[in-house]
């Protein structure tokens, strides 16, 4: 499908508000959009991200509660791999910038450039996950080794699962792009995925600071 055909097919309703509707029983999902403002899809993603933020807020609250009660934190026999975690932080933070590149590309109507940037972002996401798995395999403590191990693996584990979710979402976006979807004016899903990806990135920065820098 050519870019032009995709664009015509996805002409937003705002361009033809009453098309084919006079007196007919056609139904369409949704109804009158409130003019202007945030796109409904993006709003939905942002609201979902708000709930995710509360989920992680709960984890952080639990972490700090446990930390205040502990006498030594982290316990003496715990050794973290700071260089690896710092490298993974660089990977994930860079991926936010490449994701932004993808969004700007599609805003300019350049789907091929968007696919390239999105692929790079996806690769960085996979690299982060691989690095995290390597970290898990080489650390000298585990999920079941006391309060610190439980907190460390629960928090990084839930974050890793969210990274994996973002990777799946990026695969879905690439699949849709390969079918000729997304145009300069019609790419809310890409913006939604990017917002989610930035959020996951932000959570990692908070996690890295909490687990590795504040100690």
């Amino acid at each position, binding site marked *: 499908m050519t870019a032009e055909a995709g664009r015509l*097919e*996805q*002409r*937003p*309703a*705002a361009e*033809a*508000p*009453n*098309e*084919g*509707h*006079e*007196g007919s*029983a*056609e*139904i*369409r*999902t*949704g*109804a*009158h*959009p*409130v003019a202007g*403002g945030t*796109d*409904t*899809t993006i*709003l*939905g993603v942002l*609201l*979902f991200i*708000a*709930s*995710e*933020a*509360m*989920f992680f*807020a*709960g*984890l952080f*609250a*639990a972490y700090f*509660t*446990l930390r205040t*009660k*502990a006498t030594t934190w982290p316990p003496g026999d715990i050794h973290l791999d700071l260089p690896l975690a710092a490298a993974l932080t660089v990977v994930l933070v860079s991926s936010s910038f490449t994701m932004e590149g993808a969004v700007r590309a599609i805003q300019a109507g350049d789907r091929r450039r968007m696919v390239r940037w999105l692929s790079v972002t996806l690769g960085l996401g996979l690299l982060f996950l691989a690095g995290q798995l390597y970290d898990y395999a080489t650390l000298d403590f585990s*999920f*079941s080794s*006391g*309060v610190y*191990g*439980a*907190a460390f693996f*629960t928090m990084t584990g839930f974050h890793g699962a969210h990274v994996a979710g973002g990777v799946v979402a990026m695969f879905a976006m690439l699949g849709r792009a390969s079918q000729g979807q997304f145009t300069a004016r*019609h*790419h*809310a899903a*890409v913006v*939604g995925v990017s917002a989610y990806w930035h959020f996951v990135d932000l959570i990692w920065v908070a996690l890295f600071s909490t687990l590795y820098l504040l100690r």
Partner: protein
Amino acid sequence: MATTTLVPARVGYRSSIYEWLTTTDHKKIGALYLTSSLIFFLLGGLQALGIRSQLAFPDQALVDHGTYNEYFTIHGTTMIFLFAMPILSGLANYIVPLQLGAADMAFPRINALGFWLVPMGGLMIYSSYFFGGAAVGWTGYVPLSDGNFGPGTGQGVDLWIVGLIVLGASSILGAVNFLATIFKLRAPGLTMWRLPIFVWTVLVTQTLALFAIPVFTTALALLFIDRNFTHGAFLNPAVGGNAVLWQHMFWFFGHPEVYIMILPAMGVISEVVPVFSRKPLFGYKAFIGATIAIGLLAFGVWAHHMFATGAVYLPFFSLLTGLIGVPTGIKFFNWLATMWRGQLNLATPMLFAIGFLALFLIGGLDGALLAAVPFDYDVTDTYWVVAHLHYVLFGGTAMGVFAGIYYWFPKMSGRLLDERLGRLHWLLLMIGVNLAFFPQHLLGLDGMPRRISTYPASSGWGPLNLASTIGAFTIAAGVAVFFVNILVSLRSGEPAGDDPWDGTTLEWATTSPPPPYNFESVPPVRSERPLFDLKHRPAVAALAPVPAAPADGEAGA
């Protein structure tokens, strides 16, 4: 694709099982929510009757203690997560898009997913009965729920936890959907300050759900991990965890949860009282302000459930809890001033609304007393608390739900519910609720602890418990009348017409039941009572109706 066009195979409400299983129509999903909730209401009610039968006389052994503990656990879990929340979601699912003049929710497929998670979660919670049971109370306090402490704390509790996580996911998806719908799909002219009160209460409720439920999910996840992988590292003090942490996280969710269950019921009452008093709601903006105030305060009062732990700062939580009485009091003035000198029509929806006012007032005053720390110390974990929460949740939420069902059933089915059966239902509930729950105040003051499976005759608690049990069975009789009414009226109820109550909001502008697309055209909206304007204000009625402009909420990306 941007302009998805669906041509229905046939227009009409009844359809095949396949259509019900695959529907994304908010009205059908609303009906599914209502049906599933009412089934779980029956199951939860049966367990309540089991509890009350066991307690009817001292020293009884109708059910063994372990089973009794499972009954009150699953009774509470059912009534909150599988009845109160989903039935309010069902009413909102059906009514909110209609009141907005919209064709559907913003994300219809997510809406369907949100519903189908409810029976899934329900199945998990109920299957706990076959896997050793979940006998930890609906609050699931650690250390009882943390690891295996004998009967009813084993695998069944894991199922209970996962079931609750699934139900939480359903609520979060619902919250995203409702908020996007309310913000984005309002009819032209329907500004935020013209929204029906019910929509406003749903808006605040879903905001609470969006921020409170994820924290409960966190708590449940930690509990699950503790039980299965980390041997209590989070919540068991013996291993370095923190037992009070569970209570904090649980009630950080649990108290907003109370308002998640009561605010939409207040919204229903605020639709019913003006229509049946033939007056606009007194203090529309004050009511909305009070609703928002309750929503904000809801996040600052959770530790009043934990006064007796000695681990919370008492004055702060006591003060904020007392403050909630102010916006709630404003709402009572709203309702009473609306009825004052109104032309009261005491049809069944209004009877249930008045019942709500009377019973919820008692529950609310109980709550104000519990905000006082010394009193709370005295009655913590006694039957006083049981009385309070049932006056709020049965007297408040359930009465509000019944008011809503009597009010909107004609819109959903095209038929009126029977008024005589409805009045009998109301009378039995008014007697039953007071007989079942008022004596529990006295039992609580006399020191009867909650959640005990029996008591000795020497305690002297026998007569009041017997009264309470008779009350519970009176409620059951009332509920039976309600179900008969629903079944009879669905088949042969009096045809309702489009607008049986002379309503003022947009849902009464379409047919009963509404067509799949809801509106051919939406009346012009110039106030919070668009239908009243249309009927009685020639200047507004002369405006052209707005064609139901199609646009898609979801598929546009």
